[in-house]
């Protein structure tokens, strides 16, 4: 217990990094996932196939592989660099990896949302003269999003937990910090573990509740 209190600033700092990783990835994955979902319903076969192949590839690849590829493949071999600081660079590379991976799940959630929008909605919009993109933006996607708020909440919860994989390329988020605290306080491994587990619950539980509430509040009445 004393170890936990002693290391509280370190622990909070680590979770703050977890939160930043999550937020940056959530925004990027939402944008990329939405674009992919739009491609999957586009009238152009090429776009549909590209997006389909992307989703299948990323959903079926272990996240650790994706993150390690981004860190070592992009970072070391291809020399992609965002910052002089090595740790900031790995942070960005891990955000890229997490975003590429999470976007595949966001895409599938939104696509299932698009399937809940009755075909007549898009037809009425076409009949008014809306273009394909206007139709998606004003009619189909707003209704699709509202239908999949709860599943998107699950994707976000999975993402919060998945940020721990960034540890694989040395990003000092919560799990990597836990590991170093284990080494420093070998007598307090259990309390430290429980502390970190509790920290994740504090992040994930409210997300589930919030998204459940939003899903009810924003549901489209038909």
């Amino acid at each position: 217990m004393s170890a936990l209190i002693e290391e509280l600033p370190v622990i909070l700092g680590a979770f703050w990094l977890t939160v930043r990783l999550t937020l940056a990835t959530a925004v990027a994955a939402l944008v990329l996932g939405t674009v992919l979902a739009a491609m999957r319903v586009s009238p152009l076969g090429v776009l549909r196939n590209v997006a389909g192949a992307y989703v299948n590839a990323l959903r079926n690849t272990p996240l650790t592989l994706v993150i390690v590829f981004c860190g070592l493949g992009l970072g070391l071999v291809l020399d992609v660099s965002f910052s002089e600081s090595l740790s900031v660079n790995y942070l960005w590379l891990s955000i890229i990896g997490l975003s590429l991976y999470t976007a595949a799940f966001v895409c599938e959630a939104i696509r299932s949302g698009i399937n809940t929008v009755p075909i007549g909605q898009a037809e009425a919009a076409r009949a008014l003269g809306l273009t394909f993109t206007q139709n998606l933006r004003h009619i189909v996607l707003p209704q699709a999003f509202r239908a999949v708020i709860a599943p998107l909440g699950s994707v976000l919860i999975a993402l919060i937990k998945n940020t721990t994989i960034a540890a694989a390329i040395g990003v000092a988020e919560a799990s990597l910090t836990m590991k170093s605290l284990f080494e420093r306080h070998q007598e307090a491994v259990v309390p430290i573990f429980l502390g970190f587990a509790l920290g994740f619950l504090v992040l994930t539980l409210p997300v589930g509740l919030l998204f459940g509430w939003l899903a009810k509040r924003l549901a489209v009445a038909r």
Partner: protein
Amino acid sequence: MTEADRSTSLVNLAKVNKHFGALHVLRDIDLDVTRGEVVVVIGPSGGGKSTLCRVINRLETIDSGSITFDGQSLAVEGRALAKLRSEVGMVFQQFNLFAHKTILENVTLGPVKVRKIARDQAERRGMELLERVGIASQAAKYPAQLSGGQQQRVAIARALAMDPKMILFDEPTSALDPEMVQEVLDVMISLARDGMTMLVVTHEMGFARRAANRVVFMSDGQIIEQAAPDEFFTNPGTDRARDFLSKILTH
């Protein structure tokens, strides 16, 4: 509208054919609708009436033949196609109001996004149209809060908001409870009186007799006969039309 306008063709279909896979849904359709004309299309289910509506504003493509609208070929793409669609209103059997938008937003969306009209101007005009169909007091509600008859009247206002040259109605009263049919027909009759060009798929003989210039009888993807309403209903020219009429009359 002058007499000269009245006699000119607004939409013309020539030898139009359409298949769904092996199913031949439209067979050599020739049809001309002049400005201000009200044409009722009637016929058994599966005869191709909806498809006829849908090819006119290109919700479906055709396999052969040609369709011209206001002198322009319908064989256009992209923005030109969107513009053409915006000039042909469509009212669906299932209303298809945008479920996540208010009644007023339903009516202003097309003018604002397609016609690029200023929002306040579109809202003023939208309220006028809602007034006209008797729904102005419900402008802030969502479609699911309205009855079927009210929703269909909003759908008509939504079509009118685009100032279309023509409106297609695909069985506009078939999904309604009986007590709501007349309120929708009344709006349609008043549109017809005001000179709107209309193609109406319906089995409402009262409407056809009161508002239509012509009845077109369609079956198995073909136009079997066409005549003035009174003549068609009292003295159909073909056995198939007589058969069909006797069936819907005994209902």
